[in-house]
């Protein structure tokens, strides 16, 4: 087996973001097990940076023993991109011509595409994450028979763009993070010629946690709902705040609190300042301790491809409450028997009461969750599943394309 090339628009030692940290985890754990691999990326600093600015030096850099090969990005017309992107965000239809312009003015590195084309014989496979970025789109077009995509699909306007069909239906493999993601992909694309597998994402399971340490550190001795993650409108944080306030109105004298962890800004109404505690960024250990100390973790977002935070809550042996309209998190609750889902306020209230008033069941739900995460998503398990998938693909590629594709 030759080396694997993992392609992502940006990569650095302290990279943040769901897909980015997932890829970092995969490459570092696979490399630890002796897999030859490289990360192919651009000189852009991170998602929030200017996508035409070459922040990092072009060339090879070694990050945590991983070879990271960086390529320069080219200029782009942000105005054209924004206009089309606004339409997509408002769920408006965009023409084929607009789709092409959208891709052309996204984040692009012709040097990277040329490298993939001319050096493809040095790699067994190229693994791309996530589907949306033009870097991955054009990269996969250069060598579809050796391309594997970890798409991180969820229901949104971008997934319905015809332009993605041109390439996604021709690649070698697709790795999903959950069963609903696979279902969604097969509803939109014809994937009869693509090898697919639901492998999930890797989660750090090897840590200790103490609810007592968290309670003492933050002086939180009352029961609380935990929200962990970026405090963003898109994550439905205000739905949770409104429902929590309504719950307090219906349960006068309740000592229940809502604890928020993570970046981003949230406006907490003055009347709730002593009921909602915003801890901001906390270190990883505090997060694990907090998950174990919470009565329940609430994940109100409807746009999740995996949701590491619900896995972390389960590792702390606590149940979760998720939004009914998020197929991914709801499905995980069903698979684990470790969480409930709400479709309206009354369900939120009743489920919260159920969890708070039935500690034996809540505790068992939390244990179910932990067992499920350790069995399915610990890094040893994930690394093994990914390598089996890659090896199968390489065998299929060799049989199908022989020496031509030179796997």
């Amino acid at each position: 087996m030759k080396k694997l090339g993992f392609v992502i628009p940006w990569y650095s030692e302290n990279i943040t973001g769901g897909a980015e940290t997932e890829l970092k985890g995969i490459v570092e754990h696979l490399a630890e097990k002796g897999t030859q691999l490289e990360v192919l990326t651009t000189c852009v600093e991170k998602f929030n940076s200017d996508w035409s600015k070459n922040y990092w030096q072009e060339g090879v850099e070694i990050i945590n023993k991983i070879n990271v090969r960086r390529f320069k990005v080219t200029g782009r017309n942000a105005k054209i991109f924004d206009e089309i992107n606004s339409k997509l965000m408002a769920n408006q239809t965009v023409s084929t011509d607009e789709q092409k312009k959208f891709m052309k003015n996204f984040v692009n590195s012709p040097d990277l595409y040329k490298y993939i084309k001319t050096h493809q014989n040095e790699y067994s496979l190229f693994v791309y994450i996530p589907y949306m970025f033009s870097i991955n789109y054009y990269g996969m077009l250069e060598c579809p028979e050796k391309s594997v995509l970890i798409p991180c699909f969820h229901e949104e306007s971008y997934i319905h763009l015809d332009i993605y069909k041109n390439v996604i239906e021709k690649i070698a493999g697709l790795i999903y993070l959950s069963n609903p993601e696979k279902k969604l992909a097969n509803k939109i694309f014809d994937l009869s010629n693509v090898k697919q597998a639901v492998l999930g994402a890797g989660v750090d399971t090897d840590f200790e946690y103490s609810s007592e340490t968290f309670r003492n550190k933050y002086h939180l001795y009352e029961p609380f709902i935990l929200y962990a993650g970026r405090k963003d409108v898109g994550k439905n944080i205000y739905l949770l705040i409104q429902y929590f306030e309504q719950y307090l109105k219906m349960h006068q004298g309740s000592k229940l609190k809502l604890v928020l962890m993570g970046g981003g800004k949230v406006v907490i109404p003055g009347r709730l300042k002593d009921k909602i505690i915003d801890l901001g960024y906390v270190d990883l250990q505090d997060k694990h301790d907090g998950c174990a100390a919470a009565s329940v973790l609430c994940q109100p977002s409807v746009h999740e491809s995996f949701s590491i935070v619900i896995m972390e809550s389960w590792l702390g042996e606590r149940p979760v409450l998720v939004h009914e309209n998020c197929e991914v998190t709801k499905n995980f609750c069903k698979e684990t028997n470790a969480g409930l889902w709400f479709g309206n306020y009354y369900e939120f209230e009743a489920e919260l009461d159920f969890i708070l008033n039935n500690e034996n069941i809540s505790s068992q739900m939390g244990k179910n969750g932990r067992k499920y995460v350790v069995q399915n998503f610990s890094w040893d398990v994930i690394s093994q599943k990914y390598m089996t998938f890659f090896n199968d693909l390489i065998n299929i590629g060799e049989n199908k394309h022989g020496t031509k594709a030179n796997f």
Partner: protein
Amino acid sequence: MEQKQTSEIDVVKIMESIREEIKEKGLENEVLPFESIPLPNQTFDIDDGIGPFSSEDFMDANMYLNQFYSVSVWHQIRSTKPVIGPVLTFFKKVNRKLIRFFIEPIVEDQNNVNINVTKSLNQIRNYILEKDNNETDEEEQLKQLSLKVEELLTRVKDLEDENNKLKSNSSVK
């Protein structure tokens, strides 16, 4: 995904019994339906705009603006009250129809303002990004020039040394 898990707890059954209980209590109409959750007026968050310029905050706010600049005149009308709920909903819908002629132009005007605010801020954003790029180019040019000056200084020093040597040699002779 294979479910490697056994448990006596069945969350689907728990959900069914919770929903049954809600139904029995007659709580079928929604309190705070998902569409009605109001967003706080973020513009007037007391912490915003205070402190040094943050490119990240600016980009976040700009992305939000590009996403939500268009305000919709239409929103779902529902009632939380049992029995009379449908009647209330009906009257609210009639009211909505009656005041449409008055509300629609206001919303349209507001959307025009929003579009222009968004466009202006996009221009400012592009200006900042261009400036950033230019600064990087200028920094690079400055670096190159400094290197050249350093090279020239070394060369001058070498020539001076050589000259001094030649001078001392000729004086010895």
